[in-house]
């Protein structure tokens, strides 16, 4: 991975710094596809027994009916397991996750959030996340932890009954799973809008710089 270039100030002047090393770009796009499958098949499963007084239109659900949705959901699950393992392992061992996301200072969050709302938030240097980005990325990581724990609890409420208990039982886990999905989808919408507003960031996630 090109961490040398990423931090080297002199190199930056010559060639644009590597914003995203190759492993991040690959896992990002694998993740993007897998998340879309998980969400659309999850909505299909939800529709079989809606937890809240609404259902998702069939045009945005995957699988055709409950069994199809379940087959997709429990297949894409493995893609996320492998992909997430690679991403977290390399991210933690290389220290990139920590460097990119921490520290988060409340004052900077307030300042950058205000700037974001008034359209004055700059993305001049894509290698440095602003405080709003840090909060958003850390938040979606926490939602991911919640959705994995509640998902395991729903899949195995007997074998992993401690995880189910942590979510307030089987029925509690349904709510946690739905809530975490909502957080991830809201993040995803904002994330895509921001990427389109700052096309350089989209290019960086494809070409690396």
């Amino acid at each position, binding site marked *: 991975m090109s961490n040398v270039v990423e931090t080297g100030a002199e190199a930056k002047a010559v060639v644009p710094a590597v914003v995203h090393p190759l492993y991040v770009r690959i896992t990002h796009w694998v993740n993007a596809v897998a998340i879309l499958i998980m969400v*659309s098949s999850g909505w299909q499963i939800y529709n079989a027994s809606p937890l809240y007084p609404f259902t998702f239109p069939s045009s945005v659900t995957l699988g*055709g009916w409950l069994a199809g949705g379940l087959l997709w959901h429990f297949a894409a699950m493995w893609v996320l397991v492998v992909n997430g393992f690679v991403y977290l392992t390399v991210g933690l061992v290389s220290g990139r996750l920590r460097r990119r996301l921490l520290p988060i200072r409340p004052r900077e969050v307030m300042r950058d959030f205000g700037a974001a709302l008034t359209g004055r938030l700059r993305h001049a240097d894509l290698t440095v996340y602003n405080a709003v980005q840090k909060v958003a990325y850390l938040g979606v990581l926490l939602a991911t932890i919640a959705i994995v724990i509640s998902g395991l609890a729903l899949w195995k409420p007997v*074998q992993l009954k401690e995880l189910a208990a942590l979510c307030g039982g089987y029925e509690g886990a349904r709510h946690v799973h739905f809530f975490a999905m909502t957080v991830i989808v809201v993040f995803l919408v904002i994330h895509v809008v921001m990427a389109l507003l700052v096309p350089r960031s989209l290019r960086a996630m494809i070409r690396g710089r």
Partner: protein
Amino acid sequence: MRSSHKPPPGVDAKLLVGDAAKLLPNPSRRLFLRGGASVGALAMLTGCDIADGLSAERALRKVSEFNDWVQARLFCPRRLAPTYPETAITRPFPFNAFYPEGAAPDIDEDRYRLIVDGLIQNKLPWNLDQLHALPQETQITRLICVEGWSAVGKWTGVPLKEFLKRIGADLTAKYVHFTCSEGYSSSIDMPAALHPQTQMTLKFDGEILPTKFGFPLRIRIPTKLGFKNPKHVIGLAVLNNYTGGYWEDRGYNWFSGL
């Protein structure tokens, strides 16, 4: 509709309405995976020919078989499903089947026989008096439906493990298959059959099992999803070959362990 969507012999196709309608695939759609905007979006993203629904379905079923394997390894034979106090019982307990409630089969209790077959020593059929005379156990556990909802109920009956021992079943066989009077069927792995909470249920909530909950005999497995808890059971077979089941053949994961 695919041939496998035909109701099994003995089941009136007209019964496949009502509650089941929301579960069954759209009949106008030959392949249950085809169609839907998100599938098109996926095809664009991945470049895969997902429009070829047959191969996608085949691949997904392979993963489902892998998931059977994973779940069998996750299953702990001594790990018990949570039990609940009487106050936690869901009342009224929901009815759910592939037919509407009024179409549940009427079974004559005097003529009822449980046929036992396969890798067992004693193949004499059982009548209801004989089954009721066996030692009974009661459990208050949560039934979790593949649809997502759950309900706590109280079931009383004979531990399946004790019954299998009594009929001299080969406990090293792979599967136990159940057939039901309305044409339903399901099969389970032997470790699940031998689980201490797996029960041949004769009573629900202290009363003789009502028709809608599977009179006269239901298999209650709190370590499996609800559709693997067959009602109106008339046949039990201990086997080494895979036989699938009514919903399993239509795409639900076979192991479906909790």
